C-alpha cells in the first residue's frame, strides 16, 4: 500500500465518542479515510479483517471483546503477506493498562482525547506508515506480535490471584455427568459459549469460557497456543512451523492436527 490512501477503523461502543474521534481525525489528517466504525469487539475484528485498514483505533472496554482481545484475534486471523494495521488503544481511565502500554511503547490515547495528543499520535502513525511503505519486509506484524505477547502475558490469567486447580472436569450430558480427570484431557477448545474438552477416547462440552478455565489449570502442563485453544504440552508429538508463522501440532492419541497461532509460535522452538 505504498502510496494508497491510508484508511482507519474506529472501534468504540459509545457512538458520540466514535463520531468525535472521527471528526478530530478528519481535521488533523484529512487524507486518512475512516473505513468503518465498529461498536463492539467482534464487529471490530470482522470489519478489520474485511476492510484491512492501515490503522485501527481500539477502545479497551467494549462489549463482546475488549480492545486487547480484539487485537489478539486480529493478529491471529490476519491473512499472510498483508501489512498488519497499526494499533492505537483508547481508554478513559485504566492506570494498569496505561502502564502496560507505556512499557511496551504501544500507541494509546486517553479519553477525553486532547487535540495536541491526537496530533502527536497521527504524526507518529504517518511516519510509521511511510517507513513501512519504504521497507520491503513486513516487520509491522512481528513488532505487534511481540507487544501483544507482552500485553497479554504468556498466560495472563495465571498472573492474577492463584486459584485452586481443577482435578476433575464435570461434563453433563442430559442427566448424566461425566467425571473427566484433568490428566486425561488432551486439549480444550473454545466453541461459542462452550468449551470442548477432548480426551483420547471422546470429547465433552462444558459451559465455561477459556478465560475462566485458564487460572484453574497448571500452566506448566497446559499451554495456550491460540486464543481458543489450550493443549496439554506432553500430548504434542510434533510442531511444524509454516511459512506464515503458524505452527501445526500433531497429537499423541488423536488424529486431528491443531494450529498454534503466530502469537504463541514462540513456545515451539528447539532446546
Amino acid at each position, binding site marked *: 500500500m505504498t502510496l494508497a490512501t491510508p484508511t482507519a477503523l474506529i472501534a468504540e461502543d*459509545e457512538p458520540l465518542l466514535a463520531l468525535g474521534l472521527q471528526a478530530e481525525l478528519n481535521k488533523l489528517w484529512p487524507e486518512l479515510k475512516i473505513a468503518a466504525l465498529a*461498536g463492539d469487539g467482534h464487529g471490530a475484528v470482522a470489519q478489520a479483517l474485511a476492510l484491512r485498514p492501515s490503522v485501527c483505533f481500539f477502545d479497551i472496554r467494549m462489549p463482546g471483546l475488549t480492545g486487547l482481545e480484539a487485537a489478539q484475534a486480529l493478529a491471529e486471523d490476519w491473512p499472510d503477506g498483508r501489512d498488519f494495521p497499526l494499533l492505537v488503544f483508547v481508554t478513559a*481511565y485504566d492506570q494498569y493498562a496505561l502502564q502496560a502500554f507505556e512499557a511496551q511503547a504501544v500507541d494509546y490515547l486517553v479519553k*477525553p482525547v486532547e487535540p495536541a495528543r491526537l496530533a502527536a499520535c497521527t504524526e507518529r502513525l504517518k511516519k510509521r506508515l511511510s517507513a513501512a511503505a519504504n521497507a520491503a519486509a513486513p516487520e509491522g506484524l512481528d513488532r505487534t506480535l511481540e507487544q501483544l505477547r507482552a500485553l497479554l502475558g504468556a498466560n495472563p490469567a495465571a498472573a492474577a490471584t492463584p486459584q485452586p486447580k481443577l482435578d476433575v472436569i464435570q461434563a453433563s450430558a442430559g442427566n448424566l455427568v461425566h467425571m473427566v480427570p484433568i490428566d486425561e484431557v488432551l486439549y480444550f477448545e473454545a466453541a461459542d459459549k462452550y468449551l470442548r474438552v477432548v480426551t483420547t477416547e471422546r470429547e465433552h462440552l462444558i459451559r465455561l469460557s477459556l478465560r475462566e478455565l485458564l487460572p484453574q489449570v497448571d500452566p506448566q502442563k497446559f499451554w495456550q497456543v491460540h486464543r481458543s485453544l489450550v493443549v496439554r504440552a506432553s500430548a504434542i508429538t510434533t510442531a511444524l512451523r509454516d511459512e506464515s508463522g503458524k505452527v501445526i501440532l500433531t497429537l499423541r492419541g488423536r488424529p486431528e492436527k491443531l494450529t498454534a497461532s503466530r502469537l504463541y509460535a514462540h513456545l515451539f522452538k528447539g532446546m
Partner: protein
Amino acid sequence: MLAHQPRTPAESLRNFAFRGLMTQAMCLAIALLLTYFGTRALLHNLAYSLAIGTSCWLLIDGGIHLVARFINRGRAPQRRGLGPGWPGLAGLVAIVAVGSFAGYSLGSSLVDLVTGFHSPRLFQSSTSGIVTLLAAVGGTYFFYSRERLHEEQAAADAARALALENQLRLLQSQLEPHMLFNTLANLRVLISLDAERAQAMLDRLIAFLRATLNASRVSLHPLSAEFERLADYLALMEVRMGPRLRVSFELPADLRACAVPPLLLQPLVENAIKHGLEPKVEGGRIAVSARRVGDDLQLAVRDTGIGLGTAPVPLSPPSAHPAAPAGPPLDGGTRYGTAHVRARLEAMFGQRATFTLQAAGDAEGGTLALIVLPCPADTAAP
C-alpha cells in the same frame, strides 16, 4: 465488633503496673484510716495493709486472667460475659471472695513471720475481714469500670474510623474515574455537535456530583429525590450508550414521600449498567420501580443484560492487574456495591429490610435486584 484488638505485651505490662500502683495507694489510704480510727501504730497497719492488699490484688488479678482465658477460649467475642479478659459475674464474685480470703491469710502470715506478731485469723476479726473484702470488691470494681470505659472508647473510635472509611469508599465508587472521564469525553464531543444537549448533560452531571457529595450528610431523603438522582445518572449513561440503553422509571404518587437512605439504589443501577448492559453487544433496558406491599416498600432494579452467570469482561488483561483480585466468575466487581447496600440496610433497618439479587427469570433474561424495607403508610421524609 472491631474494638478488641489484642493488647501488645508492653501495653499489658503498663496496665499491670498501673493496677499495682493503685493497689499500693489504696493500701496506704487504708493504713492511714486504720491508724486514725484504731489503736495500732502506723508502721504496723502499713505493713499488714500493704502485705494483705498486694497479696489480694495479685491473687484476684491473676485469678481473673487465668479464669477468663480458660472460659473464653473458644467463645466468639460478643458472647463473652463481661468482656474479653473477664470471667462471668459469678466467676468474678467467686474469685474476689476466694482471693480476698486467701490474700488476707497469705499477707498477714507473711508479716507475722517477719515480726513475730500473731494477727487474728480472718474469721476472728470482723474489722480486718470487712476492710479486706470491701477493698477487694472496690478495687476490682474500679479496675473493671476503668477497663470497660477504655474499651468503649476504643470501640467508638473504631466505629468512627469505619464510618469514615465507608463514606470515602462510597464516594470513590460513585465518582469512579472511568465513568467520569468517559462522561467528560462525551460532553466534549457534544459541545461542538449540539450545544443545547451538551448543556443539559452538564446540568445532569452537576446534579449527580452534588448528590454524590451530599449523600453522606443526610440519613434519609424522599423516594422522589432518590429517583431524580438515578434519572441524572441514567441520563448520562443514555448519552454515552446511545440506542443501546433504554431506561424506564415507575414511581407511584403515594410513594414519592417514602423515606429512604440517599443513593441506596445507586450501586445497584451502576452494577446493572456495568456488569449487565455495557458488556452486552446489543444493549438492553433498565427499569427502576417502586411499589407498596402492605407496610413495606419494594424497590426493584431490573436489567436485561448478560445476567449473573457470566463473567464480567475485565478492563484489561489480568496480567496488567497485579493488584486486582481475580474473584469468582459470578460476582467479579459487583461485590462491593451489593455488600454496601446490604450493610446500609442492616445498619438502618436491621432485620426489617431485605436485599436479594437474582436472575430476572423471564424470557428477556438479565438481573433483578430487589430491596424490601419498611415504609408505614403515614411516614414521610423529614
